[in-house]
C-alpha cells in the first residue's frame, strides 16, 4: 500500500513506452495475459485490440483502475504484493510486470509468484546502471534524478533500485530461466554494453 500514498505522475501513453512495443511483439494472439500494475490499462487495451488477448489487470490506484475499466479492461483494484496468491497455477500464458518491479515491496516474491501463475513472465524495468544515472550520482553526490528516474528521493514510487546486472544476478541465483532479453536505448534494441547503455530492459522469463 506504500505506493498509493505517494503522488505518482500518470504513466505515459503506449507510443511513448518502448517496452510496450517489445511486449506487444512477444505476446501471441489469443494469449491469456495478466498485467500487474496495469495503470490505466493502455497496454492491455492495445493487446486486446491488436492481439485479441484475454486480458486482466491489477492496479492499486483507484483513479487508474477507473480509467482502465472505462477503457473496457477487466482490471481490479488491488495490491500486487498480495493479490497473486489467489490465482491458480498456470492461470495465464503471460504475467506482465512493466516498469513496476522497482515499486513492489517484495520483488523476489512477486517474481516467484509470476512464474507460478503464468507460463511465462515478462518483466521490464528502468536500468539503474545507465550511464546517466552513474554520472548524476558521481557529480552531484545525491540520489540521482535523471530522465529515467525523474523523482525526488522523498516522493519516488521506486523503492528498489536495480540494474540489468542486478536482475540477471537474481535470476541466476533463483534459477529463473531467462528465455529472451531486450535492451532498449530509446526505442532501439541494443546488444553492446547494455548495463551501461540501455535505459530499459525487458526480460522474458520461463
Amino acid at each position: 500500500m506504500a505506493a498509493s500514498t505517494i503522488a505518482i505522475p500518470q504513466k505515459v501513453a503506449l507510443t511513448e513506452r518502448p517496452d510496450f512495443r517489445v511486449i506487444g511483439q512477444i505476446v501471441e494472439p489469443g494469449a491469456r495475459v495478466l498485467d500487474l500494475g496495469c495503470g490505466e490499462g493502455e497496454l492491455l487495451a492495445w493487446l486486446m485490440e491488436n492481439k485479441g488477448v484475454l486480458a486482466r489487470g491489477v492496479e492499486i490506484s483507484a483513479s487508474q483502475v477507473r480509467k482502465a475499466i472505462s477503457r473496457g479492461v477487466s482490471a481490479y483494484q488491488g495490491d500486487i504484493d498480495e493479490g497473486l496468491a489467489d490465482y491458480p497455477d498456470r492461470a495465464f500464458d503471460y504475467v506482465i510486470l512493466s516498469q513496476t518491479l522497482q515499486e513492489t515491496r517484495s520483488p523476489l516474491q512477486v517474481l516467484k509468484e509470476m512464474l507460478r501463475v503464468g507460463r511465462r513472465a515478462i518483466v521490464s524495468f528502468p536500468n539503474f546502471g545507465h550511464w546517466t544515472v552513474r554520472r548524476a550520482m558521481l557529480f552531484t553526490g545525491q540520489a540521482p534524478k535523471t530522465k529515467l528516474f525523474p523523482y525526488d528521493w522523498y516522493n519516488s514510487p521506486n523503492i528498489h533500485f536495480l540494474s540489468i546486472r542486478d536482475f540477471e544476478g537474481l535470476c541466476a541465483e533463483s534459477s529463473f530461466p531467462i528465455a529472451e532479453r531486450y535492451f532498449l536505448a530509446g526505442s532501439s534494441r541494443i546488444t553492446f554494453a547494455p548495463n551501461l547503455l540501455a535505459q530499459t530492459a525487458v526480460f522474458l522469463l520461463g
Partner: protein
Amino acid sequence: MVVETQYARFESIALDSGATLSPVEIAFETYGQLNPDRSNAILITHAFTGDAHAAGISHDGGKPGWWDNMIGHGKAFDTERYFVICSNVLGGCQGTTGPGSINPATGRPYAMSFPVITIRDMVRLQRMLVAKLGISQLLCVAGGSMGGMQALEWAVSHPEMVRSVIPIATTWRHSAQQIAFNEVGRQAIMADPDWNQGEYYDSKPPARGLSVARMVGHITYMSDESMREKFGRRLREKEKFGFDFGVDFEVESYLRYRGNQFVSRFDANSYLYITKAEDYFDLTNGTGRLAEAFRLDGITPVDTRFLVISFTSDWLYPSYQSQEIVRVLRRLNGDIAYCDLQSNYGHDAFLVDVAEQTEIVRGFLNSTARIAKAA
C-alpha cells in the same frame, strides 16, 4: 421521457419455501428499444424500498425514477443503445404481488399468510418476465444493495442468461450487523399496536413503527461524514434549545420527515417480508464456500463478466464484502473488474454519487457489448 408502469401476470410461481403463489403479478417499466436480435437488454434490479420506476418521468405522478441519473439518453445505461427493464420485486408493494395483495382464496389481503420469499424467488419471477418479453439472454443485470444481491443471484442461478452482472455496494451473504439492523426495523413495526399481527389493511397502518424502522434505515445509508456535512448540530428553525422533546436538531427533523414520507408509500408487511429475504440471502446456502457457488457444474467457473463496485464510506455493506467476491472470482480466473470508489455518502453513494460510477459502468457495458457481438 414520460414512462408508464406495465404489468405481467403469471399463473403461479413455486417458491424456495415450498409454497406456491398463484396467480402472481409483476410491475415493470422499460426504457429504450429492444434491438432486432434481442441482444441489448439490461435488467436493473432495485434496492430494498425501490420500485419499477427506475428512470424517466412517471406518467401519473410526474416523479423522476429512482436511478434517473444513471439510466437514460447518454447516461451510464444509455437508452439509445440498450433496452433497459426494471421490475418491482416479489413481496413488494408497488405493483408486484406482495403481502398487501388480495389472496384470491379469501378475497382479502394476504397479510402474514403471504409465504416467506427469498432473493432467489425474486430472481425467479424476473426470469419469467424476461422470458415473456422474448429475451433469452440479458446483456447485463445491474443493481445496488439488495439489487446487487439479485444481480449475483442471477449469475449463480441463471448464468446462461446473463453476459455480465454489476453488483454494487452489496454482499454475497447478509452479515450479523445487516441482519441486526433489519431486525430492529421489524421489531419497531411489530411493536406498534396498529400492526395488529399484520391485519391492518381495513384500519390504520402501523405508521409509527414503520416510520421508526425507516429512520434507522436512513442512518445506515449515510455516513458519519455525510451527516456531519448535511446537518452538523444545526438547530431546526430555532436559535436555542427548546428544552422539551420536540424537534431541536436538523437531523431529527430530517429523519422524522423521511420516516413519515415513507409511511405513505410503503407497506409495513412488505418491509417485514423483504428484510427477511435479505437476511436469508447467502449465495452459498450456508456452506460459506463461495467458489462452489460460482461454478456452473461444480467444475467449470462461471463465464459471466463481473463489474463489482463498492464505496469507501459504505459501512452498511462495507468494501470487504465486495472484495471477498472479487477474490473468489480471481481464484476461479473469472472475468472480473472491481473498483472501490471514493465517496463520503456512505451506502447511499450508488444512488447519489454517480459521476465515477457512470464512467466505469459505461466502459464496462461497452466492452461487454463488443465481446457479445464478436462471440
